[in-house]
């Protein structure tokens, strides 16, 4: 029996091929699953609606950070007590969601993060592993949070935490921004080992290494203008 106050937020861009399968794995949590279609030009929204999720549509493509915040706003308005963010490409294991909830309850955590490095990363490309390890190192230095995985899309927020955190980085820099905010607010963060499965589909959809330069620039801009 799925937790009644839990909402699942899935940012999706051009995921028509995969979103129905991802949502069918999340069957126990429907209909409290909100897919934010981030201006896809394919049939992502229709496919998600068919699979029984609530669908919000960005008229233009804004980026994953912006899509997450839209979904979180919607979940908060819908009365969510807990909000779980989940990737559209089917990388995550749906059974982990219960573990995130248990951890939040048992340890009184405000934010629970999935970690593929304390858990398992199946068929992960070596370059991806290297880039993510670097991101972890930098984020640990910045935030002083003892994390092992800083860019995992599987996260759980309590309502109170979600109300206090506001994602401003529209693109992929939101992951680092989020952790800086969490550190600044002094929220209680716990990591839970998770399994991330890299499929041919997720590898093709995933971030390119070159995008890390853009992320660094976005963060530098944010540091300058804050």
């Amino acid at each position, binding site marked *: 029996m799925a937790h009644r106050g839990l909402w699942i937020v899935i940012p999706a861009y051009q995921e028509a091929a995969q979103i129905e399968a991802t949502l069918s794995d999340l069957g126990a949590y429907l209909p409290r699953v909100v897919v*934010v279609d981030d201006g896809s030009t394919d049939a992502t929204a229709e496919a998600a609606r068919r699979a029984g999720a*609530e*669908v*919000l*549509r*960005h*008229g*233009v493509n*804004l980026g994953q950070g*912006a899509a997450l*915040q*839209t979904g*979180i*706003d*919607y979940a*908060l*308005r*819908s009365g969510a007590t807990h909000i779980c963010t989940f990737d559209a490409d089917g990388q995550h294991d749906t059974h982990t969601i219960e573990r995130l909830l248990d951890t939040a309850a048992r340890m009184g955590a405000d934010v629970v993060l999935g970690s593929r490095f304390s858990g398992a990363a199946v068929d992960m490309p070596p370059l991806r592993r290297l880039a993510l390890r670097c991101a972890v190192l930098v984020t640990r230095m910045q935030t002083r949070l003892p994390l092992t995985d800083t860019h995992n899309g599987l996260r759980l927020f309590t309502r109170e935490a979600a*109300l*206090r955190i*506001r994602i*401003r980085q*529209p693109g992929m820099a939101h992951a680092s921004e989020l952790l800086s905010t969490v550190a600044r607010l002094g929220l209680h963060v716990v990591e839970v080992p998770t399994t991330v499965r890299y499929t041919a589909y997720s590898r093709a959809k995933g971030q390119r290494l070159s995008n890390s330069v853009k992320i660094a620039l976005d963060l530098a*801009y944010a540091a300058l*203008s804050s």
Partner: protein
Amino acid sequence: MIASLLLLALVMLCVYVGSHRISGSQMSLVVCGAVVGLAFVIFPQLASYTAHVLGVGRGTDLLVYVSIIAGLFVSAHLYFRSKHQEWQIIELTRALALQTSPGGRQGDALRPTGTDE
């Protein structure tokens, strides 16, 4: 010959800028730029003289340095403005997505969402 072409280009630029609505401070910048530009075109030795006074080799060098710095200012200004506009687009898109959502209410759309730090 080249002087008249340069003058013509300057005048055309002024007319083009003048045909758009710009603020008072922007207008004074444009007028200043135009006056200095005209002076340099009509009295070429003025640039050399100014360069000499400032300790820069030649008038041409002075113009290059000034153009580079002006260009950097303009790009920085445009960059920050585009970032600001990006943020406005995000807020609008989000408001619209929430408004047209299954549970969306009309009145919510233009109110900023969530709480802020």
